[in-house]
């Protein structure tokens, strides 16, 4: 996987290169590039979660086809939760700081933000496997495995959501205790 930060730097056009030479504008340009790189990464993260949501939708389709009434609502809720997290990631904060902000988000923090979002991609691959297992259990009709799978996906979504929730607080160093 390429580092999007490098990619954004490489793709700077002439105007952006000129901006880097202007005193007082250099830092702004670099931070803006980092924000763009992080935004692209989050877009990728959201798309990965979108593929997980699609997997969950397939699971719901199986349940609906089999008319497993007690599982229809459970899988439906998983789809909704996954969709909500996907949207939250897509529209998350970008680490913007005003001119005289109470706390500043500098390049170091923006780099951490990028690394944090990158680490979330690992969680996505675990979730993908869990959803795939759930689908297999649904296909085979193993009800115990299905209930285990539903619980695992639900917990995975909880953990993922919590981790993402802590993102800004951790990066800005605003955690009191």
């Amino acid at each position, binding site marked *: 996987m390429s580092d999007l930060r490098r990619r954004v730097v490489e793709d700077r056009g002439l105007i952006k290169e000129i901006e880097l030479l202007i005193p007082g504008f250099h830092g702004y340009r670099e931070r803006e590039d980092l924000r763009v790189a992080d935004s692209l990464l989050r877009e990728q993260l959201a798309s990965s979660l979108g593929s997980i949501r699609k997997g969950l*939708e397939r699971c*719901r*389709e199986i349940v*609906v086809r089999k*008319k497993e*009434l007690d599982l*229809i*609502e459970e*899988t*439906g809720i998983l789809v*909704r939760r996954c*969709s909500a997290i996907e949207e939250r990631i897509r529209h998350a904060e970008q680490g913007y700081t005003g001119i005289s902000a109470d706390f500043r988000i500098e390049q170091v923090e923006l780099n951490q933000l990028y690394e944090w979002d990158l680490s979330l991609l690992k969680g996505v691959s675990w979730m993908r496997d869990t959803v795939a297992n759930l689908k297999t259990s649904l296909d085979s009709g193993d009800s115990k495995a299905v209930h285990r799978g539903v619980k695992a996906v639900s917990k995975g979504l909880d953990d993922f959501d919590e981790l993402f929730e802590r993102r800004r607080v951790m990066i800005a160093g605003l955690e009191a205790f």
Partner: protein
Amino acid sequence: MFNGGKGEPGNIARNTYAWADAQKGERVMYRYPRNVRWNDNVIVREDEFAVFFRDGKALHVFDRPGRYAVTTLNVPVLGELVAKSLGIKQLGEIFYIQRREMRGKYGTTEPLAFRDKDFGIVRIRAFGKFSYRVVDPTLFITQFVGSEGITESERIVEWLRFELVQTLNDVLGELNRDKGISVLDIPAYLNEIEHMALSKISAEVEAYGLRIMNIAGLNINLPDEVQAAIDRRGAMGALEVNYMQYQTGKAIEGVGEGAAKGDGSAAGLFAGLGAGAGAGLEMGRAMSGGMSQSNQSSSVVQGAIRCEKCGAEIPSNSRFCLECGNKIRMDGMMECPECKERIPSSSKFCPECGSKLVEKCPECGNEVRGKVNYCSECGNRFTS
């Protein structure tokens, strides 16, 4: 609708266009009413997509906020020259699409026919709310504008409503066929029905670049006559009476109410009572198929009992004699332990106060009546 105009000094764009936020409302899509030309600028905000159409093809989707200069061969002067000499005139169009979740309501315009195991064919109405959003603007534009020629938002929402009602009809039919769910069971499965409809409609609308995000507030209405029959059946079940007894009781109730509203004279009361009871019993007999073949007059009450004091015939579920007011003692009756009213001994619930009269022993399953501390079959002690 759009903010647009000639570029100001220093602005190298020919024209700059943006979709004014205040004008968006519930409009999911809007086609810019003029063709864009070379170097026109298009502003795309966070909550919208812009699709650049050129010569009938969706060339690009601007899905990130920003200002974009579009390029066509339709350059001022040069474009006209090319058009005249070579006959080539490029047309550029811009479609704006909202990215946010849109909301709508759906409902059946015509009642859906539902084959019910208890009530036969029942015509039901369903309505509720839904939300949707455009997830694939290229597909959305290609399918609606390119294939269907639809450019108005209202028609898109109408299409969605139609699909939703069709899907609901399908879901209800399947649940009825495969799970034997009747109209009486529907309220218990509203969430499941919503999720099933959501799942089924997804594949259909995804082909149009849309996603139904949520279906909520599903409400299924039964025709008045079916609702009345359900209420009647519930009342009969709670009172543990058959149709004839129920109708008789209702008739007497009506007479009582009529007398209370009337002048209150004894003559009026008894005249009304006779007519009411007679009418109720006649209807009950007709409904139960037991239309009498005998030559008894309608004033003779069937399924009735005789008052011990005056000997008058009165309906079997009467608690007081209609003639002399004597309190009726009947076999097969018991006293409710809660309200002390006399009620049929076969009742599981008191028809007066509603208290539960039959308990099942958790050990042996034996039915016990009234307030007892031990099961008569196994001797198990009840905790409450």
